[in-house]
């Protein structure tokens, strides 16, 4: 029973991190209909900034720079590449992000070399005892941080001008433009927000508690699990992203414990496949209607 509670808390902690990443996917997808394959490289970029800067300006400062840096990289990708190719369809733009991903990831992996630094200094490897159960502090902090951020996001999405503009644009791009919503600004902020969330997520991923592996190519692979999270919930549903993230986290934690570490990665994708066969647009995604 204690193990089970521990597993559930681990799963929720992991799930919260995946939810942050999946939310980023969904925000970008809603704003631009592009699936961002470069999400993993945003994660790596944020982490890399933390690694290089924490010697000189301390962990907290480096963490802030890392989060902002990841956001700015996302913004740069949108401003410099995607917004310049308005004629290309979302499918080609998704392919373009693969190109970005390859370049950024390879360069960061080259720079990291054989060092695989852990970057969750403030919470990593400091287990907490709660009622006789040992819990990882990383997962607890991740759960709290993610809850706060996701709540903030949903409030902004619901009530702020940006949120309303974005929902309007996702609903009908032309109508939104006609009532004076600046589409460029909406998509740019969407990418920025997604990048920021990725920058936060990496602070939890490259830790001993979460993955047992430092910042490396493996971090990129873990970030890939946010894909099934976003797809599970439905690519255009923000609530779905959170549900998908938590599901992926729980499946990952349970499969690692009850089956094997190697199987856990596939288990996440298997669950996604099952959901997709039953509901091709994910749990909460809107069904595409086609006009002939």
């Amino acid at each position: 029973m204690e193990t089970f509670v521990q597993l559930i808390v681990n799963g929720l902690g992991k799930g919260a991190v995946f939810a942050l990443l999946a939310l980023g996917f969904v925000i970008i997808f809603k704003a631009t209909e592009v699936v961002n394959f470069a999400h993993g490289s945003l994660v790596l970029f944020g982490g890399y900034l933390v690694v290089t800067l924490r010697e000189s300006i301390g962990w907290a400062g480096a963490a802030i720079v890392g989060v902002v840096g990841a956001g700015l990289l996302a913004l740069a990708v949108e401003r410099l590449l995607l917004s310049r190719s308005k004629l290309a369809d979302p499918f080609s733009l998704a392919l373009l992000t693969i190109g970005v991903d390859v370049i950024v990831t390879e360069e960061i992996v080259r720079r990291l070399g054989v060092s695989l630094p852990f970057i969750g200094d403030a919470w990593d490897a400091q287990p907490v005892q709660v009622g006789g159960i040992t819990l990882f502090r990383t997962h607890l902090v991740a759960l709290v941080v993610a809850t706060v951020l996701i709540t903030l996001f949903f409030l902004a999405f619901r009530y702020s001008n940006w949120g309303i503009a974005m929902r309007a644009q996702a609903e009908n791009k032309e109508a939104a433009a006609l009532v004076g919503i600046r589409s460029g600004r909406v998509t740019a902020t969407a990418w920025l927000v997604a990048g920021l969330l990725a920058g936060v997520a990496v602070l939890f991923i490259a830790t001993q508690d979460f993955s047992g592996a430092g910042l490396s190519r493996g971090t990129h692979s873990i970030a890939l699990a946010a894909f099934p999270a976003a797809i599970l919930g439905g690519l255009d549903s923000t609530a779905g992203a959170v549900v998908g993230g938590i599901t992926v986290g729980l499946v990952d934690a349970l499969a690692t414990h009850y089956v094997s570490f190697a199987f856990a990665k596939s288990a996440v994708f298997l669950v996604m496949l099952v959901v997709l066969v039953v509901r091709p647009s994910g749990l909460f995604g809107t069904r595409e209607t086609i006009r002939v």
Partner: protein
Amino acid sequence: MSDIATKTPPEAPERAPSPKPRRDALWWVRKALWLAVLLLALALPLYLEAEWLKAGQYMMVGAVGAIGLTLLTGQAGQLSLAHAFFLLAGGTAYTVLAGPTGDPELVGFGLDPLLALLGAIAICALLGLAFAPVAGRLRGIYLGVASLALVFLGLYFGQAAENLTGGTSTGRPPAEFSLFGFPFSNEGDLEILGVPIRATERVWYLFLALTVIAFLLARGAVGGRVGRAWRAVRDNEPSAAVMGVSVWRAKAGAFAVSSAYAGLAGVMTVLWFDLLKPDESEFGTYGINVSIAYLAMIIIGGLGSVPGALVGALLVNGLPQVLALYSTELGWSTGTGEHAFTPILISSFVYGAAIILVVLFEPGGLAAIGRRIAGRLSGKQRERKGT
């Protein structure tokens, strides 16, 4: 939906006279160019060193795989990141089917290598077909991510099924290929124009033959009824269905064909490395990076273009090989050590940048550029979509 359409109409309508194939000057130039390329490829083993031949073989492995992917993604419009999985499946199937019997640790059926090759292709086609129920329901990006699942399953399978794959630590050598008793090894004395034809040269010719067959079959499919059905489904599923194309069958067929191609490329990969060794992580010989590399080939070449896939494969698979050879030849040692710009890294940069440039400036890829040049030369606009 297509039941109605497949019923034979009471009276077959008279067939419109098919237009005479164009045989103008450009057609002949084109045929002559292809012939020249083929002759060059046939003559190369007589001049090139073994390591350059090895590099060329790797390009042909890429070409076969890329042709398969361009049929699926370019012609039928189904994004697939599962290509690496089918490479692994094909390689494993060949190694198991042709492997020696009686090994207590490893499963082997001791089949003739040619049979094993065909068997591997068939198994991959069936695996592709097995994925069809998923592929048939999904579209675009959803399918792309769903197909990613197969790569992860392959990773797990490679690690778990050690009696088939040999495991991640040692792997397992494949049976040497032989055709009706003719070995593709250093055995026997064979000379052409005084050049000894040894294992590397023989495998070169084997790969060349496979590539040519793959190329011609793909061209045939694209130009024929199958290709038209694929493009109809790609452009608009409902209207394709209305026109009597069985959408499900077209999609499943594309997946099966593409998987068969990938399976063949997998067999070639295993023969090229002379080793079947599953990956330890998502990054490796059968990892996501490989799926992405194949995607890069067909994007650079132009989605849907079979010759484009060929050129894309030359670039993406050839560049690391050629760079590695040059760096040793010129004593320009970039190869090893931490933070080094390895040939693989440089080529990753090149194809990453190439993808971005192609999407931004020429969505049709190299194929569109080629068509435009041909159009200039012939002095008229020859827009042939999808070929």
